[in-house]
Every structure is written in C-alpha cells, then in structure tokens.
C-alpha cells in the first residue's frame, strides 16, 4: 500500500483561499483522521485526493506516482460520501457491483466479489432490496461495500457517520476499525467530531480555520500533549491559563495574575525561557476537587463552585478562582453515596500534579 503525499498544495474558490502551501504525508495502511472545524478545508483536501478538484498549485502523490492530473475514474481511490450518494434506481447488489460493472469485469466474478463484500458488511440477505428500504446504518454499509469492493489503495471517508444516531455511530466506528484492520487499506477519515477521530485513528491531523495543520500525531499524543491552545481546546475540553515563565529547567514555574506561581513539569521547551509569555493547558479530569485541602499535590487553588452539570458517569464543576477565571473540573461518579457532596457556592480546593500540565506557546 502506497502512502499519500500532498506537496505545496494551494487551492482557492473564486477569491477565497482554502488551503495555501499545504503539506501532509498520510502513512500507508493506517487509519488516518483529518480533524478540523467546519470551514477548515478538510473536505477540500479529500476532494483533491479523490480527484473531484484540481489544485491550483502543488502536487499529489500516491506512493511514487504523481496523480495530480490523473482523472477521477482512473485513480485507485474510492470515496464514502457524507450522505452516501447511493444510486436510488439500483438495488443493493447493483449499487455494490457498480464499480466492477463499469470496469467490464466478467459477471460471475462480479457476483462472487459482491457477495463476499455483502457478507463482510452483513447485508447478504438484503441483496435485492432497494436503497429506500434500508435503514441509515444499512445504507452506510452499502456505501462502504460499494467503495471497498473496488479494492482501492486509499479509502476516503467524508464524515460518513454524521447522519447516524449516537448508538449506531459508536457501533459503526468499531466496525470501521475492524474493517481497516482486516483490509490494511489506507483509510482517510474526515470529521469535525473529535470523539470519532480519537476513536478510529491510528494517526490524526488537526486543521485550524485557516486551512493549516496544527499538529499531526497519535490520538494520545494529540490529547495529552497538544502543541497549541487551538488543539488543546478543539480536542476535548481544557482549562487555559495565561502566565509568564519565572523559572525554567526540570520544573518550570509559571507566574500568573492573582493566582500566584504554578509548577509545571513538561518535556523540554526551548522557547519557554524566563520572561516568556505562555499558556498552560490543564485537562478538567486531571484536577482533584474537594472541600478540604488535600496533601500531596504540587498545585492547589481555592475557588467557589458556580455551576454543576451532571453527566451520569461524571459531573462537571465550574469553579470561579481568585483572578476571576472559570476552571472546569470533571469528577468521576464512582460511588453511589459519595463521602462528600459539593454544592453551589461551596468553597472548594482544586488540586493537580505539576506533571499533568502542558505548556503552550500560543
């Protein structure tokens, strides 16, 4: 399986530049997620790889082969569309067989391949049904089968689960992971849903609203060690605090307004010299909340509970601290009868360890 390389891609519609000098390498045989808010140009990138659009500048490579000018129907790339785009006048079998039929493959070979594919997605009993008789999840599977049966080198998925309800979406995510595992095809999955991206991806890229890549990495790297406040805030929830570096070295010390000095242990940051203005990101689940001050934590802040949102498995507390900013805390609801109940307007202490904080440049 070849990898995909996008080199210095520039693409604009009318006067609006969508991506500018864009570079990205998508590793072969991996489940790759392209995550970004709407308008970040991720769908445009997908359409460029598929061949629906031509870049104004730059080149696209599939392995060593330059495919920038290769027409759509000759690329060994297939797409699963956001709203499936199944052919309404053809039944399930003929939809899946479409790509093979136009390639003039013998009928019995088509029959064999399509039935095998329908078995993989669990639709062999529905082969003669029309598309309108299928549920959303089944249509999703037909769309998948229709693309995969062509044995593409790359499968592009454009927000494929957006139209499904939550439970079904969670199940389809697992099925997609299994399928990618079985086939070993490179999957490129475009989504604005960070939960989906974190779930499916081996590697993921985060795009910002200017059509630039903020960070590429494994889901764990992205979540635990975001490189920018954009990534930290877009993937998951976080607390961002401003400050000035007071001391660098093994332990950084960040001086913040009205909150005093906070200690941070983080992999070496060359730019975090003394006096630099920086941000720190602290995930809500990494904070311990209590009405009593606890021992053994490197950082402690005092505040007042302003909002409580009960999520079932966890509860989110929003605590107003001394400098006026709101800090969010997730607390696992791991007991039926907690020893301590925290209520609105309670004075609480927020505790965290200095190695659970990430230092950010911007």
């Amino acid at each position: 399986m070849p990898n995909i390389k996008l080199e210095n891609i520039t693409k604009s519609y009318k006067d609006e530049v969508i991506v500018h000098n864009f570079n990205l390498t998508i590793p072969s045989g991996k489940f790759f997620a392209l995550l970004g808010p709407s308008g970040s140009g991720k769908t445009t990138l997908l359409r460029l790889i598929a061949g629906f659009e031509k870049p104004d500048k730059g080149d696209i490579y599939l392995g060593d082969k330059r495919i920038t000018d290769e027409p759509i129907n000759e690329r060994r790339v297939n797409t699963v569309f956001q709203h499936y785009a199944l052919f309404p006048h053809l039944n399930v079998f003929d939809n899946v067989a479409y790509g093979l039929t136009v390639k003039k493959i013998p009928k019995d070979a088509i029959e064999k391949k399509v039935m095998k594919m329908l078995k993989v997605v669990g639709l062999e009993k529905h082969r003669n049904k029309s598309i309108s008789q299928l549920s959303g999840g089944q249509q999703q599977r037909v769309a998948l089968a229709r693309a995969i049966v062509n044995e593409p080198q790359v499968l592009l998925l454009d927000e494929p689960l957006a139209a499904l309800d939550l439970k079904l979406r969670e199940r389809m995510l697992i099925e997609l992971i299994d399928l990618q595992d079985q086939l070993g095809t490179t999957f490129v999955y475009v989504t604005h849903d960070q939960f989906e991206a974190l779930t499916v991806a081996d590697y993921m890229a985060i795009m910002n609203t200017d059509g630039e890549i903020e960070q590429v990495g494994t889901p764990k790297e992205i979540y635990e060690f975001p490189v920018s406040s954009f990534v930290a805030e877009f993937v998951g929830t976080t607390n961002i605090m401003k400050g000035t570096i007071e001391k660098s070295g093994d332990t950084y010390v960040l001086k913040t307004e009205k909150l005093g000095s906070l200690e941070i242990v983080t992999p070496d940051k060359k730019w975090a010299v003394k006096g630099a203005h920086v941000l720190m990101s602290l995930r809500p689940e990494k904070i311990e909340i209590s009405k009593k001050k606890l021992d053994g934590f490197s950082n402690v802040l005092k505040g007042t509970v302003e909002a409580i949102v009960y999520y079932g498995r966890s509860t989110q507390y929003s605590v107003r601290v001394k400098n006026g900013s709101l800090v969010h805390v997730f607390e696992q609801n791991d007991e039926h009868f907690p020893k301590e109940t925290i209520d609105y307007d309670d004075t609480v202490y927020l505790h965290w360890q200095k190695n659970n904080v990430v230092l950010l440049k911007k």
Partner: protein
Amino acid sequence: MIKNSLSRLFRGQRSFFLMVPALVWQILFLCIPLVVIFILSFLKVQDNVTLSYSLSHYASFFKPQYLKIIFRSLLLGSINTLICLLIGYPLAYYLVFRVGRWKNTLLFLLILPFWTNLLVLAYAWFFVLDKYGLFNNSLMSLGVISEPLTLLNTPFSVYLVMIYCYLPFMVLPIYSILEKLDKRLIEASDDLGARWWESFWRVIFPLSMSGIQTGVFLVFVQSFGEFVIPELLGGGKTFYVGTLISHYFLVSRNPFAGAAFTCFSVLFLIAVAYMLYRMFKKVNSTGGVR
C-alpha cells in the same frame, strides 16, 4: 381569536381547501364539457327538426378516410414527440450541466414563446416560410437556391412549427428533473471508475426517466389534437383530427358529428397513451438502461 378558530375549523382539511379552486376549475371547464360532448355525440337531427338518439355517427367513422385522419394525427403526434425528445433532451442536459452562468438567460429565451399567443406564433412563421419570406430570400441571396421553395402549406411547415411550439413542453420537465438530480450521484459514479458517458447512461439517464415521461405525454397528447398549426400552415388541405373536429363545429355546423368524432378519436389517444404508460413503467421497473 378569529385566526385561531379558523385554523381549528380547517385543521386536517387544509389540503382539501387548497384544492378547491383547481377542483372547481376542472369541473366547470373540463368535466362538464366532456359530459356534454359525450351526450351530444349520440344525438342526431332528424328531418331537420327533431333530435333522436343514434349511434350512426360512430358507425360512419369506421371508413378508411376517417381512420386515415386519425392515423395521420397519431403519426404527427409521434414524430413530433420523438423529434422534440431528440432535440429537447440534449438541450435540457446542456442547460443544466454545461452552460453555467448563462443558464437563466437561456432558459428565459426558451420559455419566451410561451408568453405569445399560438396564433401569433403561427402567423410569424408565415413571414419566414413564405415564397418570398425570410428563409427563401436568405437562401437565394446566398445563392444556395435559384427558385423559391414551396414551404408553406406543406407537411414540412406543419412539422417545423409543431416542433418549434412544443419543444418547451419537452425541455422544461426534463430540465427540472435534471436540475434537481443529486449531483453527488454523478460524482459517486465517476469516483467508482465510470467515464462520463457511462455515468450518463447508467445514472443520469435512468434517473431522468420521469421527466422524459412527463415531456412525452405533454407533447404527444397535445399535438395529437392540435388544429391551429395544421390549419394555418398546412393550408387546410389535409385533415388532421383537430382540424376535422373544428371543421364539424365551425364550418359544416354539425356539432353532433363533431362530438362523436371527438369521442371516437379520444379512444385512440387513450389506447396509445396507455401503451406509452406501460412502456415507461417497464423501463422504470428494470432500472432503466443497463
């Protein structure tokens, strides 16, 4: 208050009330006249004074000269429909997929003749097709022909103007279907490896079948009974269904025979329309061209 109680009164029947104007129109100007025509067709004047019921009009139509007229109209309808389809489909396709920003202007030009009275349109063609009209004059000044061609009062002029007048009825339904067609399906087809003509025959064409069906019926049914164009541009020499009926009513003042011939020819129209309907149903159920 009033608005509330009104909406309560109409709740559930809103769709019915919305239908009322159309329904009244249909009953007054279609159903009642049809019934009247149907009853008239069985009447006969006896001894120039009394009316009696009779089937003699119908009996007299089973003669070659009448059947020939019906056949001629069926042929006119079929050929007109076929040519309108052959010109209209590519035109609609071109308008939707190829023109881009000129689409609305071109569509406007296509609809423009609709706003002109059919009689005026037909007379306008007189000036074009006349012995010394625009067509002959231009050809002669270009040296293509030395003698003016006889174009008026020939089947050629009838067919030409028929096609001209009925083309929009074919283009518009096909246009609206193609316009609404989900363009992502074409992308999906391309993505799966189809070349553009394969995408056309396997996706676009089968999915536009309902537009073709509407266009075919609109053109065929109307052109079968057309009488203004054959009358004016055919010189009134050859009878078509429409011209014969108008002849009965307006010239020979025999509304009963006219009514009978109307009902008689409608039977043929229904038969052909039913055959067309079956044909389309079959094509649709097999998913179009394969």
